[in-house]
């Protein structure tokens, strides 16, 4: 595993991602998601909304790094708000 150059922050990131996927899978088995059409005009399931949240969060983080001279946790707050909006309105 040495060749993969693991670090604690990246390991925690992937562990968090795996945990989110596991929770979503469990939720889907326990409470199956139904499609809904939101502001984007496309039918989305819970998994779709998670994907949009994660992809959008990646771009928010990149924009924060490129444009803003402020600590990165600011981007995480924006990402959290973005995810809430996606799950509520998309």
């Amino acid at each position, binding site marked *: 595993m*040495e*060749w*993969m*150059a*693991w*670090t604690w*922050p*990246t390991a925690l*990131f*992937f562990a968090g991602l795996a945990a989110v996927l596991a929770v979503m899978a469990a939720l889907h088995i326990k409470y199956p998601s139904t499609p809904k059409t939101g502001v984007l005009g*496309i*039918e989305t399931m819970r998994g779709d909304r998670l*994907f949009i949240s994660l*992809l959008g969060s*990646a*771009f928010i983080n*990149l924009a924060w*790094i*490129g444009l803003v001279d402020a600590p*990165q946790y600011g981007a995480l707050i924006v990402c959290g708000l973005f995810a809430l909006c996606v799950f509520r309105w998309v």
Partner: protein
Amino acid sequence: MDKPVNQRAWILVLPVVILVAFSSVIPMMTVVNYSFQDTFGGNEFFWVGLEWYRELLRSERLWDALGRQLLFSAIILAIEIPLGILVALCMPKKGWIASLCLVLMALPLLIPYNVVGTIWQIFGRSDIGLLGRIVSDMGISYNYAQNAFDAWVTVIAMDVWHWTSLVALLSYAGLRSIPNAYYQAAQIDQASRWSVFRYIELPKMRGVLIIAVLLRFMDSFMIYTEPFVLTGGGPGNATTFLSIDLVKMALGQFDLGPAAAFSLMYFLVILLISYVFYTVMITTDKDGATQ
């Protein structure tokens, strides 16, 4: 009554999951790990945090390569999609000549990418190449190795030559699937050729055209071998697209950390565009099914 879901079916996809894990997920995790570290070889790494991302996002190099890449993709889509449709419309509908056309159309697709680059490298040379010699004899100054505009024209011509037939074949398949009754109805209504195309053929080809646009966009956005063999990214950086720049950074300069950050950003852009195309395709399919 709903059919019970057989969860044991998941076992059948396990081999694919393992294969994807080893071929994609583990290398991707490694790239993420590299993107936050610096290395001087010897498997020694030093944590640098977001430094490579910051450096790249604030450098002109990435944005210039992205701009060239988007311009290239836009130009080849603007040429290949209408040209492919036109070729498909002109192709014979049946008989041995239709089969011959299909084989001829498929030929450029069978040529390996590096061979296509080599063919055009020789073809465009003004001393021994047919194209370069003819253009030079016409009194037009042409040298793709020294002039940025000539290099762009040659790279675009090469891509159009290589890939228009894919669009033509997909469009042809779409055209052939239109029932004859539509054409008969159009004939009864005395519809013009343009009306037949606009209101029958184009809507019926919508599905395959979306696939064609998606395939050509993704492929052109990731293009590497052909322009690398033809121009090596030059003259200067005129034809240095994202993938060529990435390889220069990773293998030429051996800057593995910045190259990892670069490739992740490249991946995210491709993922976003693929998702948008996928969503459009699914929505189109649903709209088509309900009509």
